[in-house]
């Protein structure tokens, strides 16, 4: 399936390029590409970062996307196929999936001219993991041995260095994990694992306003709430050398405003078109409209910790409810094609994605749904409440899902809106939910383990369901201990196959990147994070 969408995109890109070349009469290269100017910058729709610009402190899109461009870690993901590729790292070797020897490439530099050495990684990770530094992403380092010393569950840290990190020399360091994680190198592409220059540690707060990284773009200025300007870094050593002069992150408070600017060429690339434009954006933008899969999924989770839902029989009820949802119709009508019906718990386009893991339970069949719900003893009180946050545009589809359930099974279903995201999250994590809630998962890294281990394992940080299945846990542990990433991927696919029997969460649909770009840029491709391949964007000269 990814192949098909890929092909359609390539076709669209080719036409757009042809149009551009045709419209530009002075361009006489006769090739397939419009003339581009590698010194020109392009603008991208952003929002004001919520935290200071420190790699371990950016977990929202506003700050995260800026950090991604200013920094480059050991590895990243190829935007075209989401596969891992080496950047600062030359090799990452392990014989036991627990101790990793990392060799850096020589010649990488920070924007201030200092070299990127092993200690820049080790110091940055130690700093990011330490409780006292208040870093939002510090739990990313929890695999590393000695994390408990710098980041105890409560109380003061006993050390500011993790014992698992050892600098060998300028270009080598080793990482020892507290357990086996066969796919650890996939995690290393996350921005929290970026290196930091020595200058950072003197003034982290000041640095957060004027970051110095080692990425393809360097920081120029930050006019708060207006825009953040970057320019291409001439000494950048990565495989993805910028084909443009820089990215200007323009802050928008609404997607509608950004869309109006995009249509009039005042904005070059946008994040997501606003819901109000979903029906028309393909007609408005023509070949410049983007519709690509994204590594994110929407689910309905259940409160398995409640006595009503705890008994094994109730798995049948959840399977039945899943079959009562007409995903095809809802994604086409209410969601206007911006989502794709899910058939698994891992999103499409992610490494290890396997179509149809959910089996018949993710297909719409009112009769079978009714039968399963009856066999399972019915929904408690014959009434299902779906809690969601009212500020995320979820009301329409929650109502549609409820209608679908009501019509096909006769179970009374109502949405329970909480005023905003943080209130809904507080209710979910505080176990103050009755029955079901909206949940979802956006990939941290494009690997199936991320969608499974972090969500469905017993006691996992984001296991809001209270789901606990020994078989799933055992398969996940085996997959973690696998010898290679490929074996780990297969292992997690086996673990995913356990989920239909318990149905802790109903997969609804996968997200898609519905976006577009102006007539001033070309070669705009989006990756599975929903980000454009920044360095590949060409500005038409």
């Amino acid at each position, binding site marked *: 399936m990814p192949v098909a969408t890929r092909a359609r995109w390539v076709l669209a890109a080719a036409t757009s390029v042809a149009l551009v070349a045709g419209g530009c009469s002075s361009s006489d290269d006769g090739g397939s590409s419009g003339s581009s100017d590698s010194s020109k910058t392009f603008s991208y729709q952003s929002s004001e970062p919520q935290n200071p610009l420190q790699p371990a402190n950016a977990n929202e899109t506003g700050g995260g996307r800026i950090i991604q461009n200013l920094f480059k870690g050991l590895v990243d993901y190829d935007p075209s196929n989401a596969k891992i590729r080496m950047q600062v790292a030359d090799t990452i070797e392990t014989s036991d999936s627990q101790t990793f020897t990392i060799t850096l490439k020589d010649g990488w530099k920070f924007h201030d001219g200092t070299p990127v050495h092993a200690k820049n990684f080790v110091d940055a990770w130690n700093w990011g993991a330490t409780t006292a530094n208040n870093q939002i992403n510090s739990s990313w380092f929890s695999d590393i041995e000695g994390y408990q010393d710098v980041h105890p569950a409560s109380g003061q840290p006993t050390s500011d260095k993790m014992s698992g990190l050892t600098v060998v020399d300028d270009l080598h360091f080793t990482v020892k994990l507290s357990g086996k994680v066969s796919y650890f190198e996939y995690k290393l592409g996350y921005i929290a694992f970026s290196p930091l220059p020595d200058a950072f540690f003197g003034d982290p707060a000041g640095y957060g306003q004027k970051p110095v990284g080692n990425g393809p773009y360097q920081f120029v200025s930050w006019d708060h709430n207006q825009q953040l300007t970057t320019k291409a870094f001439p000494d950048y050593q990565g495989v993805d050398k910028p084909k443009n002069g820089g990215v200007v992150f323009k802050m928008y408070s609404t997607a509608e405003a950004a869309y109006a600017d995009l249509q009039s060429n005042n904005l070059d690339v946008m994040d997501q078109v606003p819901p109000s434009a979903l029906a028309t954006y393909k007609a408005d933008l023509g070949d410049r409209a983007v519709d690509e899969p994204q590594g994110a999924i929407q689910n309905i989770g259940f409160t398995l910790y409640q006595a009503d839902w705890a008994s094994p029989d109730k798995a049948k009820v959840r399977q039945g409810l899943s079959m009562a949802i007409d995903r095809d119709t809802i994604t086409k009508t209410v969601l206007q094609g911006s989502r794709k019906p899910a058939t698994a718990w891992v999103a499409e386009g992610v490494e290890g994605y396997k179509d149809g893991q959910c089996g018949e339970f993710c297909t719409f069949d009112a009769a079978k749904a009714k039968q399963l719900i009856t066999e399972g003893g019915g929904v408690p009180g014959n009434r299902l409440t779906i809690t969601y946050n009212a500020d995320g545009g979820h009301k329409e589809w929650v109502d549609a899902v409820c209608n679908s359930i009501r019509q096909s099974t006769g179970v009374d279903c109502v949405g329970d809106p909480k005023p905003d995201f943080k209130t809904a999250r507080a209710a979910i994590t505080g176990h103050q939910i009755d029955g079901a809630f909206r949940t*979802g998962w956006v990939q941290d890294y494009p690997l199936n383990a991320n969608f499974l281990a972090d969500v469905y394992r017993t006691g996992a940080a984001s296991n809001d369901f209270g789901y606990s299945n020994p078989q799933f846990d055992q398969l996940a542990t085996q997959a973690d201990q696998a010898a290679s990433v490929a074996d780990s991927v297969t292992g997690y696919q086996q673990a995913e196959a356990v989920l239909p029997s318990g149905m802790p969460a109903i997969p609804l649909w996968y997200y898609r990147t519905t976006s577009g770009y102006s007539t001033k840029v070309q070669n705009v491709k989006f990756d599975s994070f929903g980000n454009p391949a920044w360095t590949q964007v060409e500005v038409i000269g």
Partner: protein
Amino acid sequence: MGSYVLRRVLQMIPVFFGTTLLIFLMVYTLPGDPVSALFGEKAADPAVVASIKHKYYLDQPIWKQYLHYMGNLFQGDFGTSFTGRPVSDIMADAFPVTIRLALLAFVFEMVFGLLLGLVSGLKRGSVRDTLVLILTLLVISIPVFVLAYIAQTVFATNLGWVTPTVQDSKDLSQLILPAIVLGSLSLAYVARLTRTSIGENLRADYMRTAVAKGLPRRTIVTRHLLRNSLIPVVTFLGTDLGALMGGAIVTEGIFNVQGVGNVLYRAINQKEGPTVVGIVTVLVIVYLVASLVVDLLYAVLDPRIRYA
């Protein structure tokens, strides 16, 4: 006069404390935990949450938080937002933008509102009076966001005179369109208020006297009629200036103006106490000063009013 102003200024002090306390309590009672929300969909790390709460003084009881905040405020420290920026910096960025926008809208509604009101009020029942009435009725009945989108479509997308959104919020010329949209509703009110007021005063005894004295018509209208008719309009304009500054959230959103409205909206959403309290406190002061100026203007406009 002087003692009156002094008394009014002294009255501002309890109002200032009362509003800051109220706003502080309101932000505090907003549902949800702002620090946990920083973690998004992922589970919040309790150790980091506790550490961040400690840093922002959120682990203290509410009365301590308030005293701490007020203590800092009197040293000129408005606190720090979650972005690590001092709130005073955030306000120094946002207020100039909003003041420009509000003043533009204010001048627009005042000049054109008075003009339209005068034109229609002097000849009630005429064609131009009916036209003004219909026009203002139309503006009053259309919600401001509809008006904003119409203006955006017509002047930016169709005619191409301006960019759809404001590219540089500090550029006065780009703020003209949002200001017109923002001021249009008040313009309608000002026009109608002026019209009614003028209509009433036209029949007043002093008007007949002025006409009988043989004064030129221009003098009658500007010196006698307009000046006396302005009192209700000035009251409205004074309070409206405060409303324009704090209530531009919709317009600022549509035209992407990075002013107070946008910052306040985001801060409320993120439950960022210091930012909300800081901005609202300044807005309250603006209101208080504006209403004082209005009261003083009464005396200027109507010599019968004296303050002692």
